[in-house]
């Protein structure tokens, strides 16, 4: 068996995939680290300088503020053009803003308010409360809840004792749990509902304003946004909605007091179809309106007015106007027109422009220092430039203040420039898609899929010729050249481009080299249009629709069901399912030889029975699904909640019994299978782990569940013991299973050799030994499964025909139990042990799901085996080629059990409890809990990936039945059950079959990753991109990465077995032939 080419090819393909994913995700998912530090009043003191001192103590410019957020209030909606006689539904509907701004120029201003992408409501709320540039993933954010942990305005207002009252979009309540003095949330989920939120606010806002129990009032209206999503801006409903908002603003203005600031703003705009999320100007440009009954602005024309106000600038402005510290992570810049100029102090209590800017500069610099210490994503050259600027400004300002005269105008400008530069630097690294990287990632992934397909078709060539050497070398060279070029021209290295160049060049070179090798007609459309690949195509296409992603669990089950039903239908269509009636005179040209009808009938029955098992387990597994929030009336499966949360004690007992029975069944079925094929007869360590470690681990798990299910208050006296058990039982289980895996790797052989003749009398005079792959130890079983030819062949090949012996004695001298399943037995044991470890990380009820998983995997394998046997005479496939249908089923089953074990491709549905199994007190590091949660999330991917080579072995394992009955039917005696030893007879075909299988499995999974990457790239403006497609992409990509690693592990396991089988034969042959 050729091990190295197979492993190298697989690792190379996987790494190419990883590079593609890495590049795309790097360009698409904007990542930023959260700084979990907060500003305090003490921060803003500038030591050594006699500035105002602690400004929190001084009287702020405004005591109160009303913030009206009109979701998706686009800048265009607020412009008023009196000459427009035929306004569109969204034009001229908010005259109040323009009226106020023109009639009271010192009290009101209307600005264009530019949001940063992603222009989705949640990211925007985060943006204009923290003053930062939230990305899709703010690392440090706890995924389980959406709560904002970064320093923000609401937190700061609460710190100084302001009463913040909130009403409107209920997103805020999940973002700021328990931060509001009073909150009136209304459901925001239904996009088709234009009025619930708005009417809820309108009922409450005026009484609240007239009362005195508030300092800051935030009201978030959703009607305009929902109207946009439902009808688009160009619709009469929009006119109605905007006119309603006009009325709201007027009434609020009427009720304003002199010490109150009014802010009316949109969080983002919308496209002409009413969507948002992207970065086009229509989506980013919202409106900002500021108003106060007392003079707020200096006279117009006295200073430069900003054209466009960036959204981040609101935070420092509001903070300083209301007298709270600027939130720590803000990168905004105070809005200068709201602060009096130097010298002309209009408002006695306000900060001057220079003072405000100085506070702002200090805060931004502090943040920049903290951030650049934590993360390295800000380019070093711009960072050092910014540092130099700051020290310059700092010395100038402090010198000016020290001398007692006012800071010069140039200093104000340079402070502004500094703030703008910081903001732009941050924006460049956090808030911009990188289309080149996205395109490169997409390209590499697409070519990788093609590569997988080519390798699977040409596996026999790939393992023989050194096709891979040149592409891999050239890839390395290309990567190094690009790296050197970057170092030479830019001075620093961008790893992603080097990797991209390396993988792309190696891919292209490989495809170019195989262009000549590929036989003609192989790439015809008919080869690709098999129903299995059609199902795969449907699966990939389903990833492009948000509804199908939401109902993914059902979609996958549907497709898997279709594919399984297709197998017998197809066999029947080919006339292979039903034995031919004996009276029919079949023309001999159709089928040269047919299987005996009894065999056909039995195989067909077995196939249908397993189809029934498959269908049943598919149907039952549907009831174990979890629910997405988008799924409306769905109820999560009751088995998903941990037992300790089940209130009813009878129900709890029932669940517990069910789980333990499933667990026992899992262990029993594995043991039963191994015993049936005679793998438990030898005395190796593997058998020890199968016979003792596996049951022991099951018992530990059962006990652990029992302990963790006991309600806390029932056994008070034993609480210490229970706590101890909760730590040690799962750890013991992990250790047992880990030990089992280790032993399995050290000695994976489960073959028991039994000599008929006494060991000491072995000599050259002995009759030629024969081997049999026995399935059992009963004497009846011994008569079957002889492998005489096998031994002869191996010996001839090894010994070069040194000994020629007559076959006088038909009784074998040595029997080998379990030789027929020598490859699959360790693999099954590996899956079983891994499965138990993964089950431990799940809620107890998921034992059912794992049992169904075992049954379904067995069903896929048996259906595959039966259909191979039935069609074995139809198409002559020598070699061990696994067709597409079982591979696609296998991968679909993995996706299906991802859902059936209670997982969903959303971040809130991650089962965080897995991190605390065996560690109820929590962890100190992050690596261990992260890996536990990853293992939990992708457990079905892992089990199916490791078990993937079983698809190759199963038809051989099941071969016994066919030949046994051949014997009984009186067929020739020499055709003995060889089972998996066939693989050893043909090491070349074995390795090429293995490579082909793994490449096909990777292709099937890679195509799904490619589809979800396409979905994210194409639909990046979609309403659901951050809720559906981006999380789906993350899960699909991580699932692929984890799965492909375990595919390689499974293949490596097979090779490990092959090595020890080789060792066994080497050890035996000299002994017997000497």
């Amino acid at each position, binding site marked *: 068996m050729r091990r190295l080419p197979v492993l190298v090819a697989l690792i190379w393909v996987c790494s190419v995939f990883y590079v593609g994913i890495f590049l795309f995700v790097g360009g698409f998912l904007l990542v930023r680290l959260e700084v979990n530090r907060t500003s305090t009043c003490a921060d803003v003191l500038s030591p050594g300088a006699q500035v105002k001192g602690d400004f929190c103590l001084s009287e702020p410019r405004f005591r109160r503020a009303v913030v009206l957020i009109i979701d998706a209030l686009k800048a265009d909606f607020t412009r008023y053009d009196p000459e427009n006689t035929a306004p569109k539904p969204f034009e001229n509907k908010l005259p109040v803003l323009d009226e106020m701004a023109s009639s009271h120029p010192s009290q009101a201003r209307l600005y264009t308010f530019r949001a940063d992408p992603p222009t989705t409501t949640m990211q925007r709320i985060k943006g204009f409360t923290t003053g930062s540039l939230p990305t899709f993933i703010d690392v440090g954010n706890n995924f389980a809840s959406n709560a904002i942990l970064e320093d923000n305005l609401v937190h700061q207002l609460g710190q100084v004792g302001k009463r913040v009252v909130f009403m409107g979009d209920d997103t805020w309540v999940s973002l700021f749990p328990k931060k509001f003095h009073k909150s009136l949330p209304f459901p925001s989920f239904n996009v088709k509902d234009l009025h619930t939120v708005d009417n809820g606010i309108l009922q409450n806002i005026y009484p609240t304003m007239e009362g005195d129990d508030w300092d800051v009032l935030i009201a978030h209206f959703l009607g305009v946004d929902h109207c946009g999503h439902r009808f688009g801006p160009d619709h009469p409903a929009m006119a109605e909605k905007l006119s309603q908002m006009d009325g709201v603003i007027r009434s609020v203005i009427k009720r304003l007091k002199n010490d109150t600031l009014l802010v009316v703003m949109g969080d983002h705009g919308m496209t002409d179809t009413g969507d948002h999320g992207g970065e086009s100007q229509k989506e980013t440009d919202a409106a900002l309106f500021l108003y106060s009954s007392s003079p707020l602005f200096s006279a117009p024309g006295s200073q430069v007015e900003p054209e466009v106000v960036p959204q981040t600038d609101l935070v420092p402005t509001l903070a300083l106007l209301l007298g709270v510290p600027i939130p720590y992570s803000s990168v905004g810049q105070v809005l200068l027109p709201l602060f009096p100029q130097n010298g002309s102090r209009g408002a006695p209590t306000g900060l001057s422009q220079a003072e405000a800017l100085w506070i702002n500069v200090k805060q931004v610099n502090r943040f920049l220092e903290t951030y650049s210490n934590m993360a390295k994503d800000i380019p070093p050259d711009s960072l050092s430039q910014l540092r130099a600027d700051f020290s310059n400004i700092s010395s100038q300002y402090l010198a000016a203040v020290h001398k007692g005269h006012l800071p010069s105008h140039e200093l104000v400008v340079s402070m502004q420039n500094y703030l703008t530069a910081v903001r732009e630097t941050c924006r460049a690294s956090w808030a911009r898609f990188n289309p080149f990287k996205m395109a490169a990632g997409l390209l590499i992934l697409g070519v990788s899929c093609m590569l997988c397909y080519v390798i699977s078709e040409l596996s026999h060539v790939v393992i023989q010729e050194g096709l891979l050497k040149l592409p891999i070398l050239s890839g390395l060279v290309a990567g190094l050249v690009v790296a050197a070029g970057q170092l030479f021209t830019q001075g620093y290295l961008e790893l992603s481009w080097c990797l991209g160049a390396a993988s792309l060049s190696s891919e292209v070179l490989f495809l170019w080299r195989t262009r000549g090798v590929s036989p003609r007609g192989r790439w015809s459309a008919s080869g690709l249009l098999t129903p299995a690949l059609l199902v795969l195509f449907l699966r990939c296409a389903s990833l492009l629709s948000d509804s199908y992603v*939401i*109902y993914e669990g059902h979609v996958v*089950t549907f497709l898997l069901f279709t594919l399984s039903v297709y197998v017998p239908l197809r066999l*029947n269509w080919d006339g292979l*399912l039903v034995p031919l009636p004996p009276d029919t005179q079949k023309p001999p040209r159709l089928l040269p030889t047919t299987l005996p009808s009894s065999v056909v009938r039995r195989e067909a029955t077995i196939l249908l029975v397993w189809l029934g098992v498959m269908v049943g387990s598919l*149907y039952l597994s549907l009831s174990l699904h979890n629910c997405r929030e988008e799924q409306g009336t769905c109820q999560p499966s009751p088995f998903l909640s941990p037992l300790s949360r089940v209130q009813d004690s009878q129900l709890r007992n029932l669940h517990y019994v069910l789980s333990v029975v499933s667990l026992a069944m899992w262990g029993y079925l594995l043991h039963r299978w191994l015993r049936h094929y005679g793998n438990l007869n030898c005395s190796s360590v593997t058998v020890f782990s199968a016979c003792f470690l596996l049951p022991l681990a099951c018992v530990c798990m059962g006990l652990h569940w029992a302990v963790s299910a006991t309600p806390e208050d029932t056994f008070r006296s034993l609480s210490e013991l229970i706590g101890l058990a909760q730590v040690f039982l799962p750890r013991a289980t992990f250790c047992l299973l880990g030990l089992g895996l280790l032993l399995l790797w050290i000695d994976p052989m489960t073959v028991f050799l039994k000599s008929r003749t006494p060991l000491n009398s072995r000599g050259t005079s002995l009759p030629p030994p024969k081997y049999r792959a026995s399935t059992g130890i009963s004497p009846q079983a011994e008569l079957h499964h002889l492998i005489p030819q096998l031994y002869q062949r191996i010996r001839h090949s090894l010994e070069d025909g040194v000994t020629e012996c007559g076959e006088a004695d038909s009784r074998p001298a040595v029997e080998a139990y379990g030789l027929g399943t020598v490859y699959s037995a360790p693999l099954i044991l590996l899956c079983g042990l891994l499965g138990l470890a993964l089950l431990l990380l799940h809620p107890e009820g998921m034992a059912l799901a794992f049992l169904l998983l075992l049954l379904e995997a067995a069903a896929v394998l048996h259906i595959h085996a039966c259909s191979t046997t039935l069609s074995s005479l139809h198409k002559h496939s020598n070699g061990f080629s696994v067709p597409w249908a079982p591979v696609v089923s296998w991968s679909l089953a993995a996706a299906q059990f991802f859902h059936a074990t209670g997982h969903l491709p959303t971040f809130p549905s991650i089962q965080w409890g897995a991190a605390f199994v065996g560690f109820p007190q929590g962890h100190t590091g992050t690596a261990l809990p992260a890996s536990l949660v990853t293992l939990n999330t992708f457990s079905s991917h892992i089990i199916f990936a490791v078990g993937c080579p079983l698809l190759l072995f199963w038809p051989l394992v099941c071969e016994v039945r066919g030949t046994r009955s051949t014997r009984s039917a009186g067929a020739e005696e020499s055709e003995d059950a060889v089972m998996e030893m066939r693989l050893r007879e043909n090491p070349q075909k074995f390795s090429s079959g293995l490579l082909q299988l793994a490449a096909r499995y990777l292709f099937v999974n890679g195509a799904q990753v490619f589809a979800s990457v396409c979905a994210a790239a194409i639909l990046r403006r979609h309403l659901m991109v951050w809720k559906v497609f981006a999380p789906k992409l993350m899960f699909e990509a991580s699932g692929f990465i984890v799965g492909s690693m375990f595919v390689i592990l499974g293949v490596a396991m097979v090779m490990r077995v092959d090595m020890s089988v080789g060792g066994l034969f080497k050890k035996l042959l000299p002994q017997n032939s000497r």
Partner: protein
Amino acid sequence: MWDVEIRGMASAHAIIASTIFMATVIPAVFLENFSVYGTHMVWLYCVAGSVAVVNTAVFWLLGISPPTKKNTLSYKINRLSRSCLYFLLSCLFFHTVVVMYGAPLLESALETFSLAVLLSTLTTLRCLCILGPNVQAWIRVFSRDGAMSVWDTSLQITTGCSVIGAWLGAFPIPLDWDRPWQVWPISCTLGATTGFLTGLVAAPVWIHWHRKQLTYKLK
């Protein structure tokens, strides 16, 4: 010989297709508020009933049904009752399959069963008409070399098209378009009916096209 048979089949199919059309149009004249979406069950049973009647009548008149060896009354009654039993079993079978495909188990069981009835009418009933209550023959027909006459081939095509139509009909259900025809089981019944109509049209065309390659063994 070929042309006659194909022409006969085309006209029979045309009659059946027009029945479906009539079953949609005529009740609209007599019944108030009749619409395919609104009173879907009524429409479904109209179509199923009329297709059943017309199918049986057409095949009986054309004499396609397999020749019966015995012509006694009791034998005929036996056949008839077996046919009814098979039809009922096929309804249950389709119901089970549809539920396994993910249809709700308890709620709207009537709708699911109606879909099963429609599917049985479009597939099993034709099998019964053409092949008689003989499961062996049914299984035989759905293999590559199993067709023994043009009618068997047309049975293959229409049955396949109906089932695939119903299967395709399930695709729009999860989409969030909120259309009236996305309600269970409307899209599936419409898909099955459309598939059946397509099959009716396609069968004569396909047989005509492939008449050179088609060779049937004599019964």
